[in-house]
């Protein structure tokens, strides 16, 4: 199939735009431009395809484009922000399905191909199909259509057997190419079932990682089918996404503190929906703490004795300055007994050069936590312990506290699970909107600064 130069050239341009688009998307500052650039790449690639001479089934093609595109466009526009992840899953699954379908057509047509080509077609079809049904399950789970985690008795064994069968069938297809329709059908059925079975037992909390994995799969499938079709634009887009997606999957798993293998093979037994992890301390990385604050409009910082111990005040003020430069409103909330002496925090903040008009005491600031996007608690503990309000048996009962828990997000920097002066546990750390950033306050503030700067 020799194509006119302008088609090839347009595809080449598309591939180039994809790469630049993806590059743009990898930094918060340019992310929005990135998707637009990639969008132009897509338009270019599709438009060029129409220019291929002798294209058949044009009406059908337009209809398919219209149906698929419009449905997805509209649903994508309408979906609630919170339901986005499942939409990503389902669109991704469709891409996988398309890749598998392309392979299916090639098989159905039964053209002679080199062994390598057939092999890649089969591999692409397999992972495309798995990604298709797997993504559908992921969607169903996140959407709440599928409520329970369905775990088969010998789940892992079943997975392995199914995978082995599909690989066997695939191998047969390569060996016997062109293969019989029954073989092809069987292969696709098993591959689709495999996607289902593998995904069903995975809990809602792990889903984003799995979706990312399927995303990488689809990318690879597209890349392989691109090879089969002799289309380098597909190859490049697919493989770039495959590689990026694989790395992304690993990063996500790492951020969740769950090795990928754990997620896939020993899924958490999710009680109901995706709420399995409520009631535990949730860790967060400095880069996310930075991003949360960078894109907040109001941040309240609650320093405590730990900031003093860590001598973190200079870093904290530097961080504040960067945030303010980025247009974030930052205030310091000083609890009357923060630290270990009256005015402990004042001494330190003054030393760091924090202007007095950014420092507020409990009465002045407590009403404002509700409007804060982030409350950053730095080495404070007792002074933000909500049980002082309610738990009569607590030694700190009756002490007024800073209402950090009312902020939309709470980030707590402390070294570990240490308690404060009063020696009691802090319920705040276990709440849903609270994230722990473990480490000495000084280097942690330093890391946040570094990340903030890279988001300039």
């Amino acid at each position, binding site marked *: 199939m020799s194509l006119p130069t302008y088609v090839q050239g347009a*595809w080449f341009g598309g591939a180039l735009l994809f*790469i630049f*688009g*993806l590059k743009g*998307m*990898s930094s*918060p500052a340019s*992310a929005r431009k990135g*998707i637009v650039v990639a*969008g132009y790449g*897509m338009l270019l690639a*599709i438009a060029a*395809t129409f220019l*291929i001479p002798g294209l058949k089934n044009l009406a*059908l*093609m337009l209809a*398919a484009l219209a*149906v*698929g595109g*419009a449905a*997805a466009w509209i649903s994508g526009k309408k*979906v609630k922000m919170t339901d*986005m*992840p499942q939409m*990503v899953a389902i*669109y*991704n699954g*469709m891409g996988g399905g*398309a*890749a598998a*379908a392309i392979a*299916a*057509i090639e098989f*159905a047509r039964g053209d002679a191909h*080199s062994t*390598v*080509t057939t092999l890649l077609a089969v591999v692409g079809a397999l992972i495309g199909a798995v990604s298709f049904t797997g993504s559908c399950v992921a969607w169903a789970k996140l959407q709440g259509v599928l409520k329970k985690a369905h775990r088969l008795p010998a789940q892992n064994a079943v997975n392995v057997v199914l995978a082995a069968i599909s690989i066997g069938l695939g191998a047969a297809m390569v060996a016997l190419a062109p293969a019989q329709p029954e073989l092809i059908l069987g292969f696709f059925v098993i591959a689709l079932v495999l996607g289902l079975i593998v995904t069903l037992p995975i809990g809602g909390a792990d889903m*984003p990682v799995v979706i*990312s994995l399927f995303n990488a799969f*689809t990318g690879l499938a597209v*890349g392989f089918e*691109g090879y089969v079709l002799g*289309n380098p634009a*597909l*190859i490049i887009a*697919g493989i*770039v*996404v495959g*590689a*990026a997606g694989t*790395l992304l999957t690993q*990063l996500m798993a790492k951020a969740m503190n769950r090795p990928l293998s754990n997620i896939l093979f020993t899924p958490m037994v999710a009680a109901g929906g995706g709420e399995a992890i409520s009631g535990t301390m949730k860790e967060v990385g400095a*880069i996310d703490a930075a*991003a949360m604050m960078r*894109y907040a*409009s109001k941040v309240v910082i609650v320093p405590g004795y730990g900031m003093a111990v860590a001598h973190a005040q200079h870093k904290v003020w530097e961080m504040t300055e960067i945030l303010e*430069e980025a*247009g*974030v409103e930052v205030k310091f909330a000083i609890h009357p007994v923060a630290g270990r002496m009256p005015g402990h925090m004042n001494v330190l903040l003054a030393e760091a050069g924090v202007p007095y008009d950014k420092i507020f005491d409990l009465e002045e600031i407590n009403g404002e936590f509700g409007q804060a996007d982030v409350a950053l608690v730095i080495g404070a503990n007792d002074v933000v312990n909500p049980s002082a309000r309610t738990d009569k048996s607590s030694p700190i009962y009756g002490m007024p506290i800073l209402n950090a828990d009312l902020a939309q997000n709470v980030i707590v920097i402390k070294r570990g699970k240490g308690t404060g002066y009063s020696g009691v546990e802090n319920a705040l750390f276990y709440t849903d909107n609270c994230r722990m950033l473990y480490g000495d306050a000084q280097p942690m503030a330093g890391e946040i600064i570094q990340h903030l700067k890279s*988001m300039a």
Partner: protein
Amino acid sequence: MDGLLALYIFMLAAFTGYEIIAKVPVILHTPLMSGSNFIHGVVVVGAMIALGSAETPLEQAIGFFAVALGAANAAGGYVVTERMLAMFKKKEG
């Protein structure tokens, strides 16, 4: 297509993909996943080619299916990503 050259292309593309993602903040994980999801929507081009050369009704059916899915992938991926990234609107400093 020359397998060896394809291998080089795979290698370079993989390297490129890796380099691009190497250091992204976690906050971008989801939009980036969505964005790369959009990009592999280019499969629609492959589907169009396949449909464009489909002869039998079966091929046409699968081809239709493939194009529709691919189009959905591309269109949906774009919209969703675009919306997610709207939150990175530049603030006036």
